[in-house]
Structures are given as structure tokens and as C-alpha cells.
């Protein structure tokens, strides 16, 4: 089969890092091609070059055999290359119609004909079997629907290549299935589809071929059927895979430590039904449940990021009065939120500034940390957590997802907390960083820290937890003790509540 799009010997260099080195990448028509790699492997750079957001230093791009120069995102689209990113890159304040037609509005006598634009918008959505009111602002729809709208926008009549960059990262199983139906449909229409994801299962479900990048080089490519999981993952990691699914041995006596946190009837109307939860020093308690079951809500209620309207919370025997993040920090709690970009790191600030932030809040602004103290702390954390950054003064926004997560962890740890709350600590980061964070959690609990870990990944929770609280539909439905933690038990607990 001839290649629909072919990238030959593409290289790209950034200051201090060689992002791509003579990479060859080809996708045939009617093929779903998974592009795999750890964070920092060069996937994003390759995609940006393909979609015109970046120029390449050397190499050639051929579209249906003809060499092309892709100069801008607009030009890429004109050539028939559409892209959909993990963060929905549409404008939430504008209506669905305006989002779908921006830059290509049908015009009559030089002025936009909104009636025609609406018809076109509906037509585009119909192709994907999405039926919504196109006049409402995009932001009023769920992320899944926004994702489909983004695909609808990326698809023109003449679209030949569609890039899906982690489109399923924030979708639940049903929504993912809906998206895959659309992808299969598009594949049968002869599109070349580039699919990027961190979910290995999804790769085997949807893709026909796989290309693997590592450190800016193509390290493997082939039909999905010929590439077993273990091979794929070892290609991505470039080293023998350590199995992380196993239970990591819990410290003996973890469940005998003193109770450092206990919630009684804590809840908030329309957010989370009242629940009881306790946490002991040196213990890891997992929060498990399906998407939307209230994992984040529990984490935020305990940390005080959401103010409860019932029940009470005791930390080290003292009743919390304010339920504010400030009070929680002062009582020795720390929180790493799920949405790194929106709620966690400050991308423009440097690694050092991000790490210092929580500590400074705890100390109060009157006692400023001296520059050399800051530097010392930052260096310590960078070393302790293995944050890959050239120096402490690099803006966090320029690091990879896994390293950003570590900076968040560092920030939480630098204030020396007794209780650490992690919401989705491994979301959007690669397999290697995943394993490091999991073992880091175990290490921290062995040092006597009490951890509350909310995660959508069962294996991850099974690996780290001493006890698991199971949630369903914003209600705590059960707790599973250490010796009973198995995949079947968790699923059973979730299911048993469905009556």
C-alpha cells in the first residue's frame, strides 16, 4: 500500500535537546497508526511538524507521494491534515457553530451567512452521529462531546490525514467506545489516522500498525498483530520491564499506626454524600471507583479545596474549623490535584519557585526563604525524586508530563507533610515515570507518611494501597482491607452496590 503521508529523515533540535533524529514515519490510507513513546520521546514534536505548528530542521514530508512544505497549521489543514489534541483546542465561550466554522465560514456578498454556517455545522456533526444544539456555547458540553466536536472540526471533505493526540485521556469507557466507533468509520472512509495514547489496551483495540519513538529516534515499527505487549513496552522503555502490577510489599504494621485523620459524615450536597474515612500514619488508602464516582470530590473535601456542608474532620485529634487549603497546609496536609495544568503547577514559574510555593505559604509571607535556602531545597528535591531538568530555574511548563507531576510531588513534600493527598498521580504520564511514582508512594508511606491516593487505574491502586475505599455515584459504598485487595473484590464491591 502506498503511504498517504510519509515523513522521511525528519530532525528537530531545540536548545540543549535533540527532539527528533532522522525519524521516518509513514501512515497508509485506511490505517489507524499508533504512535507510541514515553514522555519526551518526540511524539509531540513529530506531530507538531506534521501539523505545521513547528518547522523541521531537516527531512522531507510527502503527501500521497508528493513532497510538501507545511508552513503553518492553516496550511496543514488546507493540505488535508487535521488534528485533535488532548486538551480540546476550541474556544469554550463561542457557540458550537462558530467553533466548527471558524476561518471557513460560508459567505454571501462578503458577509458570513450564519444560516448556512449552522447547516454546515449540523452536517459535520451528523456525520459523527452527534446530535446537539449547535447554538449553545461549546463550554456547556461535556469534555467527551467537545472532543467529538473537535474531531468534527478537524474533518473536512478533503481531509486525508487525521491526528488524534491522546483523545481518550479524559473520557470514560463508554465515551471512548463512542469515539472508537467514529474512528473505525473514518478509517473505512480511507483516512490515514495517527493515534497517540498512553492506554496500551486501546492501542491493541484500535490500531493496525504501531511506531515507537524513544529519545527522538524511531526504535520500532510494525503491524500491531506482530508486536506483543511486552515487546512494545520494552521498546518504549528501552530496558527490561519491571512488573508494576504486583502488590508492592506493604510495611508491616502499617495499619497499626496512630490515626492522623478522621472524617465523620463529611459531605456536601449535590457533590458527595456524607462519608466516614480514617487514615493512619504510614498507611496508603486508595480511593477507587468509576469515572464520576466522587474520587476527586473526596480528596477535595478532605483537603478543604471544596468546603463541606455536613460532618466534621479531625486531623491529629484536632477538629478542622475553616476547611480551607490554607488551614489544611498548616495542619500538615498536602494535596496534588488531578488537573496539573489548571490547578497544580504554575507553568511559567521555574521548578524552584514551584517547589517553594507551598512551603512559603505554610511559613507565612513575613518570613521569606533566602535564595540559597530555596536553591538548596530545590536541588535536594530534584535529586530525591529524579526530576529530569537541566537546572532548577527552568520553567515547569517546558518539562514533560511525568516530570511536572514530580515537581508537584516535590512541592507537596517540601513542606514536610504528615498527610499527602494525591489525585490521579499518574494521569497522562508514561510507563516509566508511572512505575517510579508508584514506588515513590510506597517509599513515602514507609517513612511514616499517611497517603490518600485517588486513581482511576485499578492496578495502580492495588499496587500501592493498604486499604481501599470504594466509591460509586458520589457515595462511599465500601472499604476493602489489605488482605482482601484484589481486582475482583474491588469490581465486586462497586457492582454489589448497584442494586
Amino acid at each position, binding site marked *: 500500500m502506498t503511504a498517504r503521508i510519509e515523513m522521511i529523515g525528519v530532525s528537530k533540535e531545540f536548545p540543549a535537546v535533540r527532539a527528533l533524529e532522522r525519524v521516518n514515519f509513514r501512515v497508509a490510507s485506511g490505517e489507524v497508526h499508533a504512535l507510541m513513546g514515553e514522555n519526551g520521546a518526540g511524539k509531540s514534536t513529530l506531530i507538531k511538524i506534521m501539523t505545521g505548528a513547528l518547522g523541521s530542521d531537516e527531512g522531507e514530508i510527502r503527501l500521497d507521494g508528493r513532497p510538501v512544505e507545511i508552513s503553518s497549521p*492553516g496550511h496543514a489543514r488546507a493540505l488535508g491534515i487535521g488534528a485533535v489534541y488532548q486538551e480540546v483546542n476550541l474556544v469554550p465561550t463561542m457557540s458550537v457553530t462558530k467553533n466548527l466554522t471558524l476561518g471557513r465560514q460560508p459567505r454571501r456578498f462578503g458577509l458570513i451567512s450564519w444560516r448556512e454556517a449552522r447547516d454546515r455545522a449540523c452536517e459535520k456533526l451528523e456525520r459523527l452521529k452527534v446530535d446537539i444544539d449547535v447554538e449553545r456555547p461549546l463550554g456547556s458540553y461535556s469534555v467527551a462531546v467537545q472532543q467529538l466536536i473537535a474531531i468534527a472540526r478537524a474533518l473536512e471533505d478533503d481531509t486525508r490525514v487525521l491526528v488524534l493526540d491522546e483523545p481518550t485521556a479524559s473520557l470514560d469507557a463508554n465515551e471512548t467506545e463512542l469515539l472508537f466507533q467514529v474512528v473505525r468509520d473514518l478509517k473505512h472512509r480511507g483516512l490515514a489516522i495517527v493515534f497517540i495514547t498512553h492506554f496500551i489496551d486501546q492501542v491493541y483495540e484500535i490500531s493496525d500498525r504501531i511506531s515507537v519513538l524513544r529519545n527522538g529516534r524511531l526504535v520500532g515499527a510494525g503491524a500491531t498483530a506482530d508486536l506483543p505487549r511486552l515487546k512494545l513496552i520494552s521498546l518504549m522503555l528501552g530496558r527490561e520491564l519491571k512488573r508494576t502490577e504486583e502488590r508492592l510489599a506493604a510495611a508491616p504494621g502499617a495499619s497499626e499506626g496512630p490515626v492522623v485523620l478522621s472524617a465523620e459524615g463529611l459531605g456536601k450536597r449535590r457533590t458527595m454524600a456524607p462519608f466516614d474515612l480514617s487514615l493512619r500514619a504510614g498507611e496508603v488508602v486508595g480511593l477507587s471507583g468509576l469515572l464520576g464516582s466522587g474520587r476527586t470530590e473526596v480528596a477535595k473535601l478532605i483537603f478543604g479545596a471544596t468546603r463541606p456542608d455536613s460532618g466534621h474532620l479531625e486531623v491529629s485529634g484536632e477538629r478542622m474549623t475553616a476547611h480551607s487549603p490554607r488551614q489544611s497546609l498548616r495542619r500538615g496536609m498536602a494535596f496534588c490535584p488531578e488537573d496539573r495544568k489548571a490547578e497544580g503547577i504554575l507553568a511559567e514559574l521555574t521548578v524552584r519557585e514551584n517547589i517553594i510555593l507551598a512551603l512559603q505559604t505554610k511559613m507565612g509571607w513575613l518570613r521569606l526563604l533566602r535564595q540559597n535556602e530555596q536553591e538548596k531545597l530545590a536541588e535536594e528535591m530534584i535529586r530525591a525524586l529524579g526530576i529530569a531538568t537541566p537546572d532548577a530555574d527552568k520553567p515547569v511548563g517546558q518539562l514533560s508530563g511525568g516530570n511536572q507531576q514530580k515537581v508537584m510531588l516535590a512541592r507537596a513534600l517540601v513542606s514536610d507533610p504528615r498527610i499527602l493527598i494525591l489525585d490521579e498521580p499518574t494521569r497522562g504520564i508514561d510507563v516509566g515515570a508511572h512505575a517510579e511514582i508508584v514506588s515513590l508512594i510506597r517509599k513515602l508511606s514507609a517513612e511514616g507518611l499517611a497517603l490518600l491516593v485517588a486513581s482511576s487505574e485499578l492496578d495502580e491502586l492495588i499496587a500501592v494501597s493498604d486499604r481501599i475505599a470504594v466509591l460509586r455515584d458520589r457515595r462511599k459504598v465500601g472499604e476493602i482491607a489489605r488482605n482482601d485487595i484484589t481486582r475482583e473484590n474491588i469490581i465486586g464491591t462497586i457492582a454489589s452496590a448497584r442494586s
Partner: protein
Amino acid sequence: MNEKYLPLAATIAVFLALFLIGGFLYKNFLSTLVLGDILADNAFIIIAAIGTTFVILSGGIDLSIGSMIGFVGVVMANLDVVGWHPLISGGLMLGFGLLFGALQGLIIDFCEIQPFIVTLAGLFLLRGSCFMVNLDSVPIRHPFVAWFAGLSIPLPGEGELRSSAIVMLVALAVAIVIAHFTRFGANVYAIGGDRVSAALMGVPMRRTTVAIYALGGVYSALGGVIYALYTSSGYPLAGTGNELTAIASVVLGGTLLTGGVGMVAGTLFGGMILGLIATLIDFNGSLNGAWIMISGGILLFLFIVMQRSLVGSFKLRDTT
């Protein structure tokens, strides 16, 4: 009703309520005479505010408006002394406004500097230039000025729509078409709604940014021309602080200061509300003029709080 019309509806409701309160308190208030006066008196500021609406919709800000109004008047008055027709000098100043705005836009985009700083520099530059030209008020004596001032369309009742108000309404109509029926207009909303997304969706960022500030420049220059004709003079301190009045009009008109949400038509009513408050306090006679600003300030506060609650409806839904 679609939620995007809510802020506009609120603005119009406030305007009508104030107008009715005036009618309830004072005889002769509820008339086209008062309405015509408010339109004419505030025409120049509303024109400038219409241009600012585009700037604010794009998430930017323009502080050079008041100085532009002063500068345009001073230049027109001095060209009048050497015998230029006000229409020709006015046209020249519109061209100047366009270029000056475009330059500001270019600097903002090319050097990636915040619009606040760039247009603040513009404010000082133009105000300083006013003083370079002359320090006193210079009358514009060309007969065209008197003719222009006498031009009007009678309204039902005793009122009339005066020339400055007519220019303002035409300028508004043009702006509405630009905002809602051109690709440029759609791009302005996109940039204001989400800059990064807009760029990825293929909006030509530089061209659009330059055009936005050029448009703002033309409209504030037009405001200056109308002000010079209306006062038949050029005064180097004219328009001082008007950039803030213009921004207040835009915000009262329902446009979000963060960009992306709002309608050009709202700015007309925003400006009229401020004018109406001034007229109400004039009618009272016993109230200090300071109350104009105080009540304007209170209204602004209320509007910002209201907008805050509206923004919530655009937030992405919780996905967890």
C-alpha cells in the same frame, strides 16, 4: 433565550429602568428631547468605546483613546488656522488613528508585550504631542462646523437626532456588521475566548491583532473628530480620562474584560447609561456632580459581579 444575550438584556433593562426612574422623578424627562441630548452629548465617547469593544473582546485593552481624542482635536484646530477644511483634516486624522493603532497592535504582537503597557505608552506619547502643538484651546472657525452642528433629523416629539448622534449610529451599525458578520469579527471572539486554541485553529494572529488595534485607533480618532466638531475647538487636555469612561461603557455594555464574550450593541447602551446618570443628576440640580462618578462606579461593581456569575456557565463541566 440563548445565554449570550443575557448581559445585553441586563444592560438594556438597566438603561430602561434608569430612564423610567427619571420620568417618574422629573417632568419632561421621558422625552425624545432628553434622549436626543444624551445621544448627541455622549456620541464621541460611545464611538471611541465601540472601537474599544473589539479590543476588549480580543482580551486586550486600549488606554490611548482619551489622548487620541485630544490629539485629533488639537491637530484639526491648528489645520483649521491654516485653512484646511475640517472634513479633510478629519479624514487625515482617521488615517493617523488607523496607522497609530496598527503600530500599537504590531508592537503588542511582534514584541509580545502586554497591551496595557503598549497603549499606556501611546497615551503618554499622544498627550505629550498635544502639548507640543499648543497649550491653549484653539477654536475651529470653519463654517462647516456650524453647518454640521445644525444638521439633524427630527424625532417624534420635540427631540432631534443630531449630526454627532447620526455619525455614532452609523459607526455602530458598521461595527455590528464587522463583529458579527465577518471572519475578522469571528477571529476577534476566538482570540479573546482562548488565545492558544485560536492560533491552533488557524486564526492569523498577527494580522488580526494589528487590525483590532487599527480599528480601535480609527474609532477613537473618529470620536476625536466628532468631539472637535461638537465643541468647535481643539484643547490639549480634551479627552483626559476618557479611555476609562470608554472601558466602563464597554463593561457596562456586557462585554467581559477577559475577552471572548460580549456584543458591540451593548456598548451603545453602556455609554448611554453613563450619560443617563449624568443627566439624572443634572435634572436634580442639588446633587453634587461627584455623584455622576460615584453612581457610575457602583453600577460598574454590580455589573462585574453579575458577569462573574455568568462566566460560570461557560466553564467546562466537571469531568471527574
